[in-house]
């Protein structure tokens, strides 16, 4: 039995999570769920960063992850505020109903 | 493998001991609170079950276990069931990194009086406590009841808001101790009361201690910040729809959180298990004296009993107190019992503060609650952290 995990497994996991995030982004219609799918993608990327950091025995990847988190926090604050505003104005969270720019 | 086995074995034993003590404490904390509030209000409090109501917690547990477990038909079932589980498990999880005492030697085994030490222990506790909010928020939402929902919303907003000044207040003593490990945090405060973080350092952390305590009251949803369960507005807040053991879980979670924050305050500001003054000045005799005085008091009241039953029970208590006082003098147990005493005494004092406040203060209005943290606590905590960090940087150079 192996007692060490190949690095490629982590990266594959990251790819799977990222693909699931993309899937959520593409297949779902609720703005909040779509937004959460974006967070899922960010998390998947973070996992890659931390894995690379381990591979190179270097702390930079952690820092990138840290910054991604900060950006995600800022993004969540603004994004949710926008969602609140949209909901106030249209009483819907369906992403396909928010299309007044199209016409 | 021998070592690994013994490591797991010891950890399991420690976990069992901690769990047993903790659950007992949780049960009896309820009794203590009722007693304290009763005495503040000049009532006797629970009195019927056992001497001075000492068996009341046992009765309560039996009652809660045997009551009908209602499952309202309109709730979101998985989340409704998950919520109390989340609340209690997150509350208990943080106990695992709290050190109760120094390294001790029990027979052939040398171990710390702590389940495990993380070098990010403080962050761990913050992380776990921030997860605790899910229990309450989900309970409120899953109940499908407007009072419960409002309670859940209130609590999540309140807990996010008060987490900020709390974290900032925690950061200040961490700067002085220069570690995130709870164990090392206590070690850095060794050497008497003037080395405790509340009084020590380039900038005594009195302000951050006060901020931490205020935030702790809010984080545990205690009076005067118990808006999520304000009974005159929201029936019972987020746990309106809960009954039986699930209700008990929320109840236990609240008390476990109280213990955790009290222990945190002790570790961060009050020197953990360290005695306030050196052994040379008789620090080791303090528990003996206290228990001896308690024994004398019990015997006196037994002799002049107000009620008939006291004539029998109080002398028994007096004798027990004397025995405990004696035990504290035994050198074999002194090494681990004394730190435990100091830790319990400090934590207990803070827990007493919780009860005292509950018996004394009225409740905040909701907008005042939010305004207080964002407009007052947060800036003050920020300023305190700034001053502390400047002074720390200045004195270490």
């Amino acid at each position: 039995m192996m007692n060490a995990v190949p690095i490629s497994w982590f990266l594959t996991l990251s790819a799977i999570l990222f693909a699931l995030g993309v899937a959520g982004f593409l297949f779902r219609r609720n703005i909040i769920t779509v937004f959460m799918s974006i967070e899922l993608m960010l998390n998947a990327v973070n996992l890659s960063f931390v894995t690379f950091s381990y591979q190179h025995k270097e702390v930079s990847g952690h820092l990138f992850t840290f910054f991604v988190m900060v950006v995600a926090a800022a993004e969540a604050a603004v994004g949710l505020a926008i969602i609140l505003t949209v909901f106030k104005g249209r009483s819907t969270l369906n992403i396909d109903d928010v299309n007044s720019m199209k016409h | 493998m021998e070592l690994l086995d013994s490591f797991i074995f010891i950890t399991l034993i420690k976990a069992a001991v901690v769990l047993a003590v903790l659950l007992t404490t949780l049960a009896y904390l309820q009794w203590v609170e009722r007693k304290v509030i009763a005495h503040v209000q000049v009532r006797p409090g629970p009195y019927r079950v056992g001497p001075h109501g000492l068996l009341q917690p046992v009765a309560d547990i039996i009652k809660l276990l045997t009551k009908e477990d209602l499952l309202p038909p309109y709730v979101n079932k998985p989340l409704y069931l998950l919520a109390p589980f989340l609340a209690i498990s997150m509350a208990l999880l943080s106990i695992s990194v709290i050190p109760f005492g120094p390294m001790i030697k029990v027979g052939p085994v040398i171990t710390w009086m702590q389940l495990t030490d993380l070098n990010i222990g403080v962050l761990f506790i913050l992380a776990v406590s921030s997860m605790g909010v899910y229990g309450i928020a989900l309970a409120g939402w899953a109940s499908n009841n407007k009072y419960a929902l409002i309670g859940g919303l209130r609590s999540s907003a309140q807990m996010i808001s008060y987490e900020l000044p709390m974290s900032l207040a925690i950061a200040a003593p961490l700067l002085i101790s220069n570690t995130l490990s709870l164990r090392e945090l206590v070690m850095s405060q060794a050497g008497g009361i003037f080395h405790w973080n509340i009084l020590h350092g380039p900038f005594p952390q009195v302000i951050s201690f006060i901020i931490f305590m205020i935030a702790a009251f809010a984080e545990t949803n205690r009076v005067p910040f118990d808006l999520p369960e304000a009974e005159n507005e929201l029936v019972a807040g987020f746990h309106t729809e809960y009954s039986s053991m699930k209700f008990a879980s929320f109840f236990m979670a609240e008390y476990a959180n109280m213990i955790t924050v009290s222990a945190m305050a002790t570790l961060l500001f009050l020197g953990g298990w360290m005695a306030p003054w050196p052994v040379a000045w008789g620090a080791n005799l303090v528990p003996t004296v206290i228990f001896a005085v308690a024994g004398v008091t019990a015997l006196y009241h037994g002799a002049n009993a107000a009620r008939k039953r006291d004539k029998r029970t109080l002398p028994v208590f007096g004798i027990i107190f004397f025995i405990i006082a004696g035990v504290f003098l035994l050198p074999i147990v002194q090494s681990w019992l004394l730190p435990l005493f100091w830790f319990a005494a400090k934590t207990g004092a803070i827990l007493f503060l919780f009860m005292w406040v509950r018996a004394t203060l009225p409740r905040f209005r909701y907008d005042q609650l939010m305004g207080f943290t964002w407009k007052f606590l947060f800036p003050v905590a920020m300023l305190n952290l700034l001053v502390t960090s400047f002074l720390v940087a200045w004195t270490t150079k």
Partner: protein
Amino acid sequence: MDVILFLIFAVVAVVCAINVVVQTHPISSALSLVGVMGSLAVLYLLLGAEFIAAAQVIVYAGAIMVLFVFVIMLLNAGAETKKGRSYLIPGAPLLIVFLGLMAYYVQRYLFPESAVVRFGGFTGGGPKDIGNALFTTYLLPFEVTSILILVAIIGAVVLARKEIE
């Protein structure tokens, strides 16, 4: 031991991630996402990223996701309706191809079998190391981040406040 831990939490993460996508109710998705984040935190610990693991739980699970849950509860958003287009037909095959190629390249070319992760193999991810890097090499990005946060706060306040009559 490491392999078992990895497998447990990887499976939890993937299952939760699938749950994020397939659940129709946003709050279920949000809680599943919390699950993904929690398992990722454990994997971070396995990779020696203690600080990031703690930050993951505190920031992501404890703050950002609470905000999501809070907003979902505030809007009292119901389950998703079937209105509008889904991109299942063009997207799903593309995704499968994408994932397959990625996994194939990673396994076959980019990371040979010899590179492995052992718990404790890297200990440079503690708070001290992060702090050192943050306040020396990455000081400017760090400061810029604070501006970003300030802007986000102001933006959120302006967006979400009530209209002033």
